[in-house]
């Protein structure tokens, strides 16, 4: 079976784009990815488009915009893992031998679809009693503080770090550094989380061009990065209440990816993880096995997760700093991994980066730990 390689990536600036829409942003990202790959667009055989709230056939609107309609295309929705799922579907189409060149696109014009707190689907019993995504993570944060003695300041440091990383990312939603005090004094959303503990409402899109071994050989693209694993799982149904301070779903998805890639967590040089909230980054890196349980807050305090630290987490600025256009997020993580692994990350370049991991986790449905979790491993 062929392995899969990323030969080109593109992404729009993340932020508020009042004069644009999801298709327009997706087209910009796709054109950049095609140009970056150097491939003739006529060689692209299929496409997947991840988005959440953009309505019917958004992917087709993107292809129409760039003159490429006529391909098999599927729109995929997996909440905040939609873009990552598009990458996985593209990789499966190649691994299955159906296609040699596939485009994966993720896009969202979220500012026109949402203000304030994201909620589960209204049909869900938890939505019916007032669940919001910030509240769910706030409850997990409170429990984590109780169990592991994490301080409020330690939690704020996750936002401070990611905003600092975002300040050196020209495509990030936020370009200004913030302090712990500013996080603690920002507007309360769901105690103990304030607005600077939450990822912003962001518009943006990203795209990647994936190819098979034989196509890579034919193209001779020296900048390709290998997609060594792309795993996806939904959460199991609880048969008893389980800890909300650990993520078995993230662990299971990571283990599948590590096994496929033939690596362990100790081989990961840096990671983009789904920091939709400050506490989420803590839960994710521990679930991924990159840090021991209960140990991440102190590690952030020591600078271990900084660019230049022992294991940089979210060098792009993450969802907290770069922004979180739901469908765009998972593809944008892969864009960052590719740019880091090629040594093209500019000011935020991680020296000697060889193995990067991207993690997404999205959605809330009553009684299951998480709706959709993805882990991608990219190797140079």
């Amino acid at each position, binding site marked *: 079976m062929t392995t899969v390689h990323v030969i080109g990536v593109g992404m729009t600036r993340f932020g508020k784009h009042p004069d644009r829409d999801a298709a327009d942003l997706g087209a910009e990202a796709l054109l950049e990815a095609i140009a970056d790959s150097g491939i003739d667009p006529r060689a692209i055989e299929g496409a997947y488009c991840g988005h959440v709230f953009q309505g019917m056939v958004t992917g087709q609107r993107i292809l129409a915009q760039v003159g490429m309609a006529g391909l098999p295309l599927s729109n995929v929705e997996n909440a905040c893992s939609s873009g990552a799922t598009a990458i996985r579907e593209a990789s499966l189409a190649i691994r299955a031998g159906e296609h040699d060149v596939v485009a994966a696109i993720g896009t969202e014009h979220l500012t026109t679809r949402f203000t*304030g707190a994201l909620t589960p689907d209204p049909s869900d*019993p938890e939505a019916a009693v007032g669940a919001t995504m910030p*509240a769910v993570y706030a409850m997990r944060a409170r*429990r984590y503080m109780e169990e592991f003695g994490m301080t409020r300041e330690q939690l704020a440091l996750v936002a401070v770090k990611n905003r600092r990383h975002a300040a050196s990312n020209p495509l990030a939603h936020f370009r200004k550094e913030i302090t712990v005090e500013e996080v603690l004094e920002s507007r309360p959303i769901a105690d103990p989380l304030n607005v600077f503990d939450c990822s912003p409402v962001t518009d943006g899109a990203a795209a990647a061009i994936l190819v098979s071994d034989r196509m890579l050989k034919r193209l001779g693209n020296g900048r390709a990065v290998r997609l060594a694993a792309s795993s996806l799982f939904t959460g199991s149904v609880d*048969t008893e209440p389980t800890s909300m301070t650990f993520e078995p779903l993230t662990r299971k998805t990571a283990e599948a990816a590590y096994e496929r890639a033939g690596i362990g967590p100790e081989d990961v040089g840096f990671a983009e993880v789904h920091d939709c909230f400050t506490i989420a980054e803590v839960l994710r890196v521990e679930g991924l096995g990159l840090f021991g349980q209960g140990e991440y807050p102190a590690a952030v305090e020591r600078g271990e997760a900084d660019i230049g630290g022992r294991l940089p987490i979210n060098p792009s600025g993450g969802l907290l700093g770069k922004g979180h256009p739901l469908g765009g997020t998972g593809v944008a993580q892969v864009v960052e991994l590719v740019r880091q692994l090629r040594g093209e990350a500019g000011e935020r370049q991680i020296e000697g980066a060889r193995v990067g991991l991207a993690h997404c986790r999205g959605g809330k449905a009553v009684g299951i730990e998480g709706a959709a979790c993805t882990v991608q491993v990219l190797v140079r």
Partner: protein
Amino acid sequence: MTVTDQTSAPISFRPREFEVLADGTGRLLGSRCRGCGAPFFPVRAACSGCLGTDLETIRFSTTGTLYTFSVVRQSTPAFPVPYVLGYVDLPEGVRIMSQISGCEPDDVKIGMDLELAVEEFGTSPEGAPLLGYRFRPLAGRGDR
């Protein structure tokens, strides 16, 4: 057209998950697997433990303990803020998300004992009052 009192009698906001009994008390509804005993909220079609499909609908206990909580300060227009949202562990082995009422937010503590209360929970599209659930400090254990 006039809506009479009979037709606008309070009804459950989510009849599949929450039942209001004749005596005015409420019960959360779920499933228990007759094969392996695993409990579920809400009602399920099959058991995730053994994948059996022989499940009975059960009424859960009306008391529980608070696993964690948050004071929600930004929400959708349907839910005026602030309100306390928590996860309540019931003796049957299920964890239920619920608002917590009947005490000040500052008095809410992880591990506190709670009981189910029937409270107004919005109105139907026809304007009839709907009944839902919140958990309150267990009588005699809370401050009031």
